[in-house]
């Protein structure tokens, strides 16, 4: 049975960094500090504070968290780059990290030479690269550039070359940082295909990302890290919702600080939005609150904009199924859930939410970019259309 053998086990992992308050790497300061032994001018930064988890064989394991929460530190400890301050880390099997693409790339060397150098870092002998060379080059689609120096490559070409070498790595466990998913749409598709292949091959993958779409789509399990601690673990959907909630809290706190994306005359206000996206449906939970006086006939408006901030669709709460005018008692908070078919193409979308009166005369609260969602890897042609019409075709005439 797959999925029951533990391949990564981390117990009470702590990682502390000692940061000098002043630049402390000259001998003079070291000598001074011998005499001032009380104050060494060092702050301890606790990047990871007691992290415990297990990853089973064949799992696609997501690690999410905000910038600076400690997830990269965790990845580097798993990769053996950093040493744990306390706690234990056990890894069974060959682990290959992709923390940065093209490690060791040298701009003065040709593409070919860099393939061998980068390959050596991943543990390939010259002969092994010889055998794979043609495959690497054709995957990168760089046939005619291999004898050019790397400094003449565009950044996209570099990434392609690096990725093509990296996918050759024959590992039991892969550590993927989301750096893998950079590049143009075409390249991203290759990355996602690679992820799917890995899943099919039952490789164990630890995946660090900010993209909740990717977590929901690929991961079997996920953890959310906040300030060096795991605050949520379990099903990727729940974990990514928790992650999204983190930002809503943050946005809530920021909302009154002369936010140009937020205006309105007051009376009622948007408290929070959470977005749930899957292949078929999009659900928006919108929490609204009235001020001290009661509010009648509020309309919630939803605008959906594509990545160029062009309006592609929308809806208002009064003219839909189950809709109508909303009335709130003083200081009442209510949550409304909107659900509609996911007819959007692949890409990033942002959502504007407005609370207004029936005929748009009063705008109580308008929140530009209140939420966003990412539609991933639906079908190829979806890249082109902001909205894919839910159409049907019928053969009306035989022959």
């Amino acid at each position, binding site marked *: 049975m797959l999925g029951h053998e533990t391949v990564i086990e981390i117990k009470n992992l702590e990682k502390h960094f000692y940061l000098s308050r002043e630049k402390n790497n000259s001998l003079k300061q070291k000598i001074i500090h011998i005499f001032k032994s009380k104050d060494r001018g060092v702050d301890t930064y606790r990047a990871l504070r007691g992290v415990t988890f297990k990853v089973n064989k064949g799992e696609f394991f997501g690690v999410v968290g905000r910038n600076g929460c400690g997830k990269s530190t965790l990845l580097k400890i798993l*990769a053996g780059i950093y040493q744990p301050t306390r706690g234990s880390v056990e890894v069974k099997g060959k682990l290959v990290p992709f*923390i940065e693409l093209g490690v060791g790339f040298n701009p003065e060397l040709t593409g070919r030479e860099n393939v061998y150098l980068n390959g050596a870092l991943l543990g390939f002998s010259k002969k092994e690269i010889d055998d794979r060379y043609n495959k690497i080059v054709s995957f990168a689609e760089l046939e005619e550039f291999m004898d050019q120096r790397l400094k003449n490559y565009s950044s996209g070409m570099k990434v392609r070359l690096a990725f093509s070498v990296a996918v050759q790595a024959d590992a039991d466990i892969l550590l993927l940082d989301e750096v893998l998913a950079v590049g143009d749409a075409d390249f991203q598709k290759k990355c996602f295909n690679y992820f799917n292949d890995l899943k099919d091959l039952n490789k164990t993958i630890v995946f660090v990302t900010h993209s909740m779409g990717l977590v929901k789509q690929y991961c079997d399990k996920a953890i959310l890290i906040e300030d060096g601690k795991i605050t949520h673990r379990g099903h990727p959907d729940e974990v990514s919702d928790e992650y999204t909630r983190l930002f809503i809290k943050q946005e809530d706190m920021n909302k009154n600080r002369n936010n140009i994306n937020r205006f309105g005359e007051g009376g009622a206000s948007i408290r929070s939005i959470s977005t749930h996206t899957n292949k078929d449906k999009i659900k928006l939970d919108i929490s609204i609150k009235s001020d001290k006086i009661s509010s009648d006939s509020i309309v919630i408006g939803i605008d959906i904009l594509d990545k160029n901030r062009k309006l592609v669709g929308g809806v208002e709460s009064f003219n839909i199924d189950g809709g109508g005018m909303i009335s709130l008692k003083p200081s009442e908070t209510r949550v409304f859930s909107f659900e509609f078919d996911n007819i959007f193409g692949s890409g990033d979308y942002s959502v504007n939410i407005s609370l207004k009166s029936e005929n748009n005369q009063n705008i109580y609260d308008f929140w530009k970019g209140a939420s966003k969602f990412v539609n991933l890897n639906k079908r190829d042609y979806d890249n082109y259309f902001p909205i894919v019409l839910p159409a049907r075709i019928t053969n009306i005439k035989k022959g």
Partner: protein
Amino acid sequence: MNIVKKLEQLKKKYRYSFILIRELVITEFKLRYQGSVLGYLWSLLKPLFLFIILYFVFVYFLKIGAGIPHWPVSMLLGIVLWNFFAEITNGGLKSIVSRGGLIRNINFPKYIIIISSSISASINLFFNLIVVFVFTLINGVNLSTAMFLLPVFIFEILLFGIGISFILSAMYVKFRDIQYIWEIIMQGLFYASATLFPLSKVLNAHHTIGQLMLLNPVAQALQDARRVFISPDLPNLYTLNNNPLVSFIPILIVFIVFVFGSWYFRKKSPYFAENV
């Protein structure tokens, strides 16, 4: 059977290191003369011109080493070996820091960096020795079978250099002053190794100081290399003392520095990634 198995295991264990060292050495060699018209030829031209300059300054004008047979080639051999030692240690000192990007992104045995840069220095030494050899022939030196001992002393310098590089490179990660301190030490060691002048000059002027100088492994290796390669009559620790124990001191120093360096480097290397 058991030994074969052990060897297989050893091969597997060091396979990655071997692959990586090989690639790093090739890369360094390729990059060394990249963009220059004459390319690798410079590896031969550099020692050639160095010799011509040194010959004119020290032998022709200053007349240092007059009366010592084949002093010009002897001096050249000394300079070439000194440069070998300097290249290993100066390169080694900065090697860990200069590969910081690599260390921060992938885990690999860090000693590979030191070993590969010392192998690069050895390749350079090989080219230099070709030039020395040509001058040895031109100069009419009577080569003896003792010249085959030369690699032994080169190896001694190599081990000493690697041991020092282990210590310096690991310290340089945290204390950048080391590079200036090492520069000063190298200035002193250069003269304490009797590279530009014959050791007999010092011995004649101040016998004890001359002997103390020979306790320095670089001076001893240089002097012995000159003995086996060019003039067997040159004094060394053994001919001066007749005491094999004293002759053993420089070798003991090399051994201690190497063992301590390896230990220190091994202890510090897991923390390079976060400090570099």
